[in-house]
């Protein structure tokens, strides 16, 4: 099978072309950094079988971020493949830089000029002659001229030669930047000559469009962003989302009843019937009821990606994010966090520095993912029916504000003088086709079903068994769940959560199951309360149910769920991308902050209502202890960091003195070794 590798600058349409050629639905978006890993799939044309590989976008064969390293390493490992370099017709002046680099290094190269119909004039044959390789104009989105590209690939396969790729690595000691700059200059001069020969002229006016003037305005841009996010929440949790969710819940409730009636006729074993009803059907169908809202949320996020709005948001937020130790580029990953934390952590690969990746991954759990959506929707249906969208919006904003607070504290304590430069290409604003929107919605639905059918189904069965059997593996029945395996564990942990207002075993069981997957919180509540999906919300408000809340304790529970540790899959992703230390820091931070915030909220409001001094005093003591621990930790970090840095030149001192009290603080002398700064 011949390997065909799609390379090109970011956001040129590689993944779109990949999807068109292989009839798949890989995630594509209108911003730099969507594809962060190599994707492969086979396709056939005439008698030829090809393995098509989609790479992350690169500007050159010199890798800079980790996603680029993935691409360059792949190119080096597959030297004899056929390379298709995708060029954006609107940006040939820059895209041809990589094409010329590839031409020098690789023998089997085809140029595919994407979005060729968007430019005023362009001579394909002249480009072919000028560069010396086959060039084809295509439109990856519509599939226009893709057949010609396939023909060109077949032709190239017949002529496949041995080639070699030399990876360029930047070694600071031997690298001559002046020489490199001269090389780049001559290459750009070559590109300009080629464009002149091709009579290349673009339609795109080189000025800020009217939309950009609004999107990028310092005041109106931020206001518009707030409106856009409010609209996303309104669509998801407002009348449309609630209507669809109610219909789905009703439909699944009817389906459940039909299924149970039929099962009762063929299964006579009561335990098996209970297991299927409560362990499988109730647990899983409860989650499925929230499918419309999750799909609506993903549709909105995908739409914002495809339009190119996220790059504008990155530009708007860059000055504010710099104060938090991040850059505008972190916006992509953070907004992806509203969909799925696991995927969002992977997108941090497109961030330049390791420290930036670590911080972004650390702050991602504050951005409430879609898996928590069923929990919010359930509790709001029970207690805040009229203000559902508002309460959920407030929760999301609380997460964002907490993230900013934590980021501020971390940034102030780190004495970070490194100034990250921010340079991001602004993609053209493009509205996605209706076909793409529907395709994305179906893809989200499919991913959701796969998740429900996989981990959630197994977890639901496990929770049911743990709730109905004790340590001696005797069947307890749902009414005696307090003495079951998980009930006994919850009994030990309940007193810890009592000051937060939700010390019942059922609530603790739900929180424990939420560590596996956040959707399991809702499933566990359904299993413990022993009710079907449509009646779960009412049962939570009913004081006779095993798990019930008051309005205040429900809000406290929501706050805890908002902040506490991300699921196992997200933790594994953080560990893989940025390391075990950051994962452990994240878990400790999320748990402790969730506890303190819930504690403070519940007891403050409770005190205001009931004037319960005892609990309130305990709460104040715990919060004071937490704050003292944090301040001591930050002070210790600041002293250790300050000792190493010269006040004058801000460079690190190689020697350190143990007695920090004698440190010389003024002028250009190193604090540690007392030598003059050079």
């Amino acid at each position, binding site marked *: 099978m011949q390997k065909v590798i799609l390379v090109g600058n970011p956001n040129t349409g590689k993944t779109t072309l990949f999807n068109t050629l292989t009839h798949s639905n890989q995630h594509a978006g209108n911003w730099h950094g969507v594809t962060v890993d190599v994707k492969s799939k086979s396709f056939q044309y005439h008698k030829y079988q090809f393995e098509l590989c989609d790479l992350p976008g690169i500007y050159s064969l010199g890798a800079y971020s980790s996603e680029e390293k993935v691409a360059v390493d792949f190119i080096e490992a597959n030297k004899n493949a056929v390379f298709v370099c995708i060029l954006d017709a609107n*940006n040939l*002046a820059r895209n041809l830089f990589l094409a010329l680099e590839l031409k020098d290094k690789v023998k089997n190269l085809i140029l595919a000029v994407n979005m060729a119909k968007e430019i005023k004039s362009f001579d394909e044959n002249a480009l072919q002659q000028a560069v010396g390789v086959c060039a084809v104009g295509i439109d990856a989105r519509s599939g226009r001229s893709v057949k010609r590209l396939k023909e060109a690939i077949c032709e190239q396969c017949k002529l496949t030669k041995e080639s070699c790729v030399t990876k360029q690595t*930047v070694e600071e000691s031997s690298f001559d930047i002046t020489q490199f700059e001269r090389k780049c200059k001559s290459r*750009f001069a070559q590109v300009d000559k080629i464009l002149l020969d091709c009579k290349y002229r673009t339609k795109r006016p080189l000025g800020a469009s009217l939309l950009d003037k609004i999107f990028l305005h310092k005041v109106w841009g931020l206001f518009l962003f707030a409106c856009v996010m409010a609209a996303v929440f309104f669509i998801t949790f407002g009348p449309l989302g609630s209507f669809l969710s109610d219909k789905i819940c009703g439909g699944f409730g009817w389906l459940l009843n039909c299924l149970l009636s039929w099962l009762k006729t063929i299964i006579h074993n009561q335990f098996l019937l209970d297991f299927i009803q409560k362990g499988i059907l109730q647990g899983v169908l409860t989650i499925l009821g929230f499918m419309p809202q999750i799909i609506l949320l993903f549709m909105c996020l995908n739409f914002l990606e495809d339009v190119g709005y996220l790059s504008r948001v990155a530009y708007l937020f860059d000055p504010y994010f710099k104060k938090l130790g991040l850059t*505008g580029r972190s916006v992509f990953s953070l907004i992806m966090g509203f969909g799925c934390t696991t995927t969002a952590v992977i997108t941090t690969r497109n961030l330049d520095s390791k420290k930036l990746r670590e911080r972004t991954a650390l702050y991602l759990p504050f951005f409430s993912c879609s898996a928590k959506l069923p929990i919010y929707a359930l509790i709001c249906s029970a207690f805040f029916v009229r203000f559902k969208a508002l309460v959920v919006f407030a929760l999301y904003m609380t997460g964002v504000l907490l993230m900013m607070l934590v980021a501020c504290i971390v940034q102030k304590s780190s004495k970070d003088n490194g100034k990250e430069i921010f340079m991001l290409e602004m993609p053209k604003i493009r509205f996605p086709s209706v076909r793409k929107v529907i395709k994305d919605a179906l893809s989200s639905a499919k991913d959701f079903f796969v998740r429900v059918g996989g981990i959630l189904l197994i977890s639901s069965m496990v929770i049911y068994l743990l709730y109905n059997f004790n340590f001696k593996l005797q069947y307890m029945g749902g009414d005696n769940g307090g003495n079951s395996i998980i009930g006994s564990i919850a009994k030990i942990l309940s007193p810890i959560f009592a000051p937060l207002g939700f010390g019942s075993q059922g609530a603790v069981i739900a929180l424990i199951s939420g560590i596996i997957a956040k959707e399991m919180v809702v499933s566990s509540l359904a299993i413990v309360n022993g009710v079907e999906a449509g009646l779960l919300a009412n049962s939570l408000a009913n004081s006779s149910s095993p798990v019930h809340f008051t309005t205040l304790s429900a809000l406290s529970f929501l706050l805890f769920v908002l902040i506490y540790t991300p699921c196992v899959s997200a933790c594994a992703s953080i560990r893989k991308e940025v390391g075990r230390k950051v994962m452990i820091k994240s878990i400790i931070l999320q748990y402790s902050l969730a506890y303190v915030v819930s504690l403070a909220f519940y007891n403050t409001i409770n005190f205001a209502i009931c004037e319960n001094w005892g609990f309130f005093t305990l709460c104040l003591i715990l919060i004071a202890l937490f704050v003292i621990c944090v301040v001591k930790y930050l002070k210790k970090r600041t002293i250790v960091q300050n000792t190493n840095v010269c006040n004058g030149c801000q460079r690190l001192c190689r020697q350190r003195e143990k007695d920090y009290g004698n440190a010389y603080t003024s002028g250009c002398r190193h604090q540690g070794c007392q030598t003059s700064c050079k």
Partner: protein
Amino acid sequence: MENQFLLKDCAKEEMCVVYRTECQDIKKQKRLCELGLVGGEKIKYIKKNKDGSGLIVLRGAVFSVDNTLASSIVVLRGNLCKK
């Protein structure tokens, strides 16, 4: 040279030519060169904020830049330079 200015001191829509970039990090410097920030390239603001951040046009593409980068690029006025 009195003809040299920082990009952030240039006006909106004023065509300038890149003279050099001053970036301490060699990897970032290399990336800027690959994006087109080499001597002789034409550059101009199409949207400029007071602190120097904004949108620039470089080699036919629109980029957003922050004030740190705008303070690192030394340019010549468009009518005084030779490519």
